[in-house]
């Protein structure tokens, strides 16, 4: 899957970079490049089965105590 992402990103850069640069939208350009880099890194990491932080685990860690109290009160 990572190669599709790479091809897509190259197309996106070829399409967006000159346009944003000509329009002097540097903030947009920066954010575009940062997000694209994050996306490419994440998909390469996924392809190589590297551990990727999972937001659901963070949410579970935050809400578990609250959930336990409320759900046991409802049972």
């Amino acid at each position: 899957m990572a190669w599709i992402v790479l091809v897509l990103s190259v197309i996106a850069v070829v399409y967006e970079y000159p346009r944003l640069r000509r329009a002097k939208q540097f903030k947009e350009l920066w954010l575009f490049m940062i997000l694209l880099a994050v996306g490419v890194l994440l998909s390469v990491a996924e392809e190589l089965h590297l551990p990727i932080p999972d937001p659901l685990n963070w949410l579970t860690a935050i809400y578990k105590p609250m959930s336990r109290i409320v759900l046991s009160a409802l049972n």
Partner: protein
Amino acid sequence: MGEIEKGKINPRQFSVLTLLFSLGSSILIVPSALTSIAKQDGWLAAIAGVAGGMLLLLLYHALGSRYPGQSLIQYSETILGRWLGKLAAVLFLGYFFLLSALVLRNVGDFITTIVMPETPIQVVHTLFLLAIVIGVGLGLEVIARSSEIFLPCIVLLIVVLIVFLIPQIQFDRIEPVFETGAKGIIHGSLSVLSIPYLELVVFLMIFPYVNRPNKIRPAFMKGAVLGGLVIVVVTMFCVFVLGWDFTARHTFPSYTLAKKIQVGEFLQRIEVLVAVIWFLTIFYKLAICFYASMLGMAQLFRMRTYRPLIVPSGIILCVLSIVVYPNIVYFRVFAAEIWPFYALTMGFALPGLLLTVSVLKSAFK
């Protein structure tokens, strides 16, 4: 700085989008969550959840109508000040984006477990996301207008599903009514409340683009009530036709429900109709969530357009939707135990806080 979204939608389109949003993913997942907690009283829990959802809509409307012409992300900065407001905006964006990833994964799970078991889930996600990326790139007006085109098709399919199931009803399956008691019903209603209604906070992002702001409240309520009605009816039919234990064991009970359709000897196995209803509704749900997170990000960074962000965010979304949970059991436990509380924080506590601060601010001025 001009407006990022130049399109305008009318109250009717707003109402249709609300309806499709509240059906997307909930119609397939919620009956199982409801019946696993409230057993045969799942439909009562659904009614309680819809009633609670209406109160939430009043809260959203009260908040949204205080700042006409501004979206949730913009007025959270106006209300809480620059830095706290940005923090709230980031939390909301995280919620919308995570919601998009979960919704996309629901599509992938459904297709790879039921329709096309040999297709890799990444392929399903990529193809579905491609349509979403094109839709979001075209903007809100296009999404809203196309939803009006698909609405009759969805209504027809829902009516077909319900009418053809009437002969299969066994009324004794719903007895004893009210066995679980008030506690069970409240607990069960959390799932309906959290799966479409607390997610409707996303609509605060498109409030400013409705061309007649005074018509927002009836349109919003109408869409959400109709969506709620469909969820209640589908849950009732699941209990009536499949029985609560069978419904609770299935991940996608309304799909199994449609397999039961048998009219004479010739009309059977039309369950793919449910899949069509679901793809159409979930497309709009995902499109709105993704659109809201793109628009919100552009507003947060005060950009002139959100369009350059779509492809990179789509790539991130695709990876996130794969890694977001390892298997469906994890998701079911998460959806039952953790998601309602997260959704309550983002869909009730935070908008409630914004409204309170805003009211206090104008009172002390």
